[in-house]
């Protein structure tokens, strides 16, 4: 007698509206931007009494003074000069005895090569240095490394550094390891 009675269906026409509302909420609150920055590693803590001895030819002292002037090896320079100075220092193309010593190391894909492994760029600043100036200098130094890595990748593999696979990237990084030491601040009078 009730064989034609239907099971009542809930009215679903509003689900789309509800979902729309939620969608718009998430659309507005979404921030797609990822965090970007200059990445680097700090050295592990050491006892302050123990001074690490580095040969003079192996260090490039870059100093940003209190009034935001840039000094490189005791000479005042402009910011745009720094990248080329750093590149020449890291690469030491002509085996200059004043530039970092080259040592023979074994790197995958390259075999036995001579690289300036013991080099250190010492970035020093004063307590009164402006942070934005410091970042500009830091940026130039990292740019020097990135350019050298890129040039090496193009020469050896015919591709830019970003296009290489992980193993080859690692080999190129071993060839030009990032060695920027941010020394503890000193008081310059």
């Amino acid at each position, binding site marked *: 007698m009730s064989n034609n009675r239907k099971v009542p269906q809930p009215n*679903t*026409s509003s*689900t*789309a509206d509800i*979902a*729309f509302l*939620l*969608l718009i909420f*998430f*659309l507005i*609150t*979404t*921030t*797609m931007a*990822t*965090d*970007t*920055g*200059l*990445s*680097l*590693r*700090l*050295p*592990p*803590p050491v006892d302050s009494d123990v001074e690490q001895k580095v040969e003079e030819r192996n260090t490039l002292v870059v100093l*940003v003074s209190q009034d935001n002037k840039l000094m490189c090896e005791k000479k005042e320079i402009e*910011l*745009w000069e720094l990248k080329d100075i750093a590149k020449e220092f890291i690469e030491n193309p002509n085996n200059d005895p004043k530039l970092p010593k080259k040592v023979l190391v074994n790197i995958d894909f390259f075999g036995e090569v001579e690289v300036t492994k013991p080099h250190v760029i010492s970035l020093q*600043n*004063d*307590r*009164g*240095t*402006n*942070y*934005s100036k*410091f*970042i*500009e200098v*830091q*940026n130039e130094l*990292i*740019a020097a490394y*990135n350019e050298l890595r890129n040039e090496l990748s193009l020469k050896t593999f015919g591709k830019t550094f970003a296009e290489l696979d992980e193993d080859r990237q690692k080999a190129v990084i071993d060839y030009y390891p990032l060695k920027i030491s*941010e020394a*503890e*601040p000193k008081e310059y009078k």
Partner: protein
Amino acid sequence: MSKFKKSSKSGSQELNASSMSDIIFMLLFFFMTVTSMKEVDFKVKFDLPQATELTKLEKKSLVTYIYIGPPTARNRARMGSETRIQLNDKYAEIADIQDYIAQEKGSMKEEDQPYMTVSLKIDKDTKMGIVNDVKQALRKAYALKISYAASKRQNEQLR
């Protein structure tokens, strides 16, 4: 003729909207998964410096933030305009950083701990003195992977 009559009789045909909610839900889930809410209330103001050699911080779960800058206008009356450090939701001192890092490290999975990155969001007019103090504190806390947050510089202004 009768063939066509049938369809024209019902007038304007309604669209089948039953799949619409599914499509909207799909979009909704996409946005829900990619959304990251603003982590904290900023109590300090920071204009990030600009740079060109940027790397992206991939995994949000591995990143810890430290904010440094002058207090925002709302808090200035109470806190003054001296550069301050903000950890999580409150102002902090240099001495608090080590505990903060240890606590953040503890809340991470053990296999992730060596990959922990500290993102330093520092106002560009800050003096290096406070930055150096923070850096020394991070070294002591063995949070050695750091990233100076910066935004992309569009045009090459040098030279």
